[in-house]
């Protein structure tokens, strides 16, 4: 386990990098929307995982979609990572969380990498490249740097690129983040929980797995050349859900001996067995967003019998970092929680 001072340092480093920060808000994934939902496991899910939400009963769920950057500024239309945090409220009174992003891999293998990355992940002035520089790029068969978005005076892309140039393990996540685009809707993107978890099946067999949400509506991004709209994702979701519920399928990929279990920077081959674990149905955007979207606090370690964390050092670090952050911003401790940071588990 990382000690509490490390968790605090990680959160402080994230806050330090923000051009603006409201202490009552999350230091990352600040802008988001809470959604009501329910989950129904597939008929095979319980064979692979004995956790309560895979029993087949209809499970009440709370979801929060978010834009990954920290800070109060909202830029829905900018190309960036999105988050989808899901809480399953189990019939036994316990709860479990699954936190995912549109990024498939992470850029750091451990806390040390993460700190080094955060040091470079600083906002710097960002200007339009001169046309001559762009011509030079084209002659070098490079893609010219994108023009700043309207109002974009700073960003962290230079620092992130220099980190990736020095660290091959970070390159995949950085590439993917750079090419990720902006979804036309929070529900038109696929989300990945990145880390490996160990699930226990009915017959006691333990398997390393990775989870992803696949949108039934399909993946679709906005036109990258159009002027981005700063504020559309919440209304889009609200309007959509007023007309019809929306579904996501939970896919679980089973790892094999030799796959990266404890390293979130490394993907697994596409040939691994994939199991459909169930369907999440989103039903509506509650009016009280202070509770559903702001105070609610997720933690990747809020797990129940049948699912365990792997030894991934990033996953380990997140446990206390999320709790520290929750306390700092006055977030609600999970009322259904079967786990709390103070337990020192």
């Amino acid at each position, binding site marked *: 386990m990382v000690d509490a001072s490390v968790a605090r340092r990680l959160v402080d480093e994230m806050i330090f990098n923000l051009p603006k920060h409201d202490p009552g808000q999350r230091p990352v994934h600040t802008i988001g929307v809470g959604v009501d939902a329910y989950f129904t496991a597939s008929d095979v899910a319980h064979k692979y995982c004995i956790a309560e939400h895979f029993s087949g009963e209809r499970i009440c769920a709370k979801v929060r979609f978010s834009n990954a950057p920290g800070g109060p500024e909202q830029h829905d239309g900018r190309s960036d990572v999105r988050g989808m945090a899901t809480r399953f409220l189990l019939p036994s009174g316990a709860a479990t969380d699954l936190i995912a992003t549109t990024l498939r891999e992470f850029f750091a293998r451990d806390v040390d990498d993460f700190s080094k990355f955060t040091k470079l992940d600083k906002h710097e002035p960002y200007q339009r490249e001169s046309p001559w520089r762009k011509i030079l790029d084209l002659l070098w068969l490079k893609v010219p740097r994108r023009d700043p978005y309207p109002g974009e005076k700073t960003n962290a892309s230079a620092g992130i690129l220099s980190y990736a140039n020095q*660290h091959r393990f970070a390159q995949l996540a*950085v590439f993917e983040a750079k090419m990720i685009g902006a979804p036309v809707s929070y529900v038109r993107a696929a989300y990945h929980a990145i880390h490996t978890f160990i699930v226990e099946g009915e017959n006691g067999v333990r398997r390393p797995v990775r989870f992803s949400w696949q949108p039934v509506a399909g993946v679709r991004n906005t036109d990258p050349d159009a*002027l981005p709209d700063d504020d559309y994702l919440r209304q889009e979701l609200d309007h959509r859900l007023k007309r019809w519920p929306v579904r996501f399928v939970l896919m679980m990929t089973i790892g094999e001996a030799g796959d990266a279990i404890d390293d979130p920077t490394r993907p697994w081959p*596409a*040939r691994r067995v994939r199991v459909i674990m169930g369907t999440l149905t989103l039903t509506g955007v509650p009016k009280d967003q202070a509770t559903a979207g702001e105070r609610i606090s997720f933690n990747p370690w809020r797990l129940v019998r049948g699912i365990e964390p792997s030894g991934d050092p990033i996953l380990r670090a997140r446990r206390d970092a999320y709790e520290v952050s929750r306390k700092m911003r006055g977030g609600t401790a999970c009322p259904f929680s079967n786990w709390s940071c103070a337990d020192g588990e």
Partner: protein
Amino acid sequence: MANDESWLDRFVNKLHKKPKPWFKYFGAYILVPIWARLTPVKRLPGGARPAIQPGDNVQSMMNLIMPLKRENRSPIGRAKAALAIAENRDQIFAGLDNVGTVHFARFVIVNDNICMFSFYDGDFTNYIRDFIATIGGAFNDVVKLVEGGDALIPCEENVEAFIQWIHEHDLYQVPDTPTDFLRDQEDLNGDKAVSPVNDDLTLLPRKLVLQLRANANVSLGSGYRAYPGFSVAQVRKKLELGW
């Protein structure tokens, strides 16, 4: 994107996003050859990568592109290729049944190439060896129409040469991630560096362009599979189709 662009900004942005034919021509026929000369790129080998994990040893792809001989690059030559497959259909199907590790196989004519695309389990060499042992005779009719094929006939007696030839005509499989593609290039150049390195990721577009010059035909990604991780034998057993 913003509207404080000068005419030159707009011109250059357009050149990049919607290039005029002259600029495309300039890129393809002048810039690319210059860079290919200045920063030569080796041809990446084809076929599935060697694997030890069970999941990587099932449902591998073979994308075999066999260019027809010059004299067969015509509708008549293509018809001969089509006939060679049609006439040997029974042998080919019986052979593939006997190999027992092939999920799907199909023959396709694209321009003046006869192609065989398949998904197979296990080792590539064993697949081709089994295949050629059982249908070598039928395959001679195909091979005699393609470039370099004469040296292999009779295929069933030139097994090692045939395997090598197939391997050389099997497409490079561009990995699923851009970084694995870069790692393939680095491996080929003997670059085993680990962090900290001094890469320039902005060069990826050029590296890709030059690689696609060296490997004009490639297979994109490792492909979609509806039921990944299962062998032919497992699927047939589960479906109770017998063997």
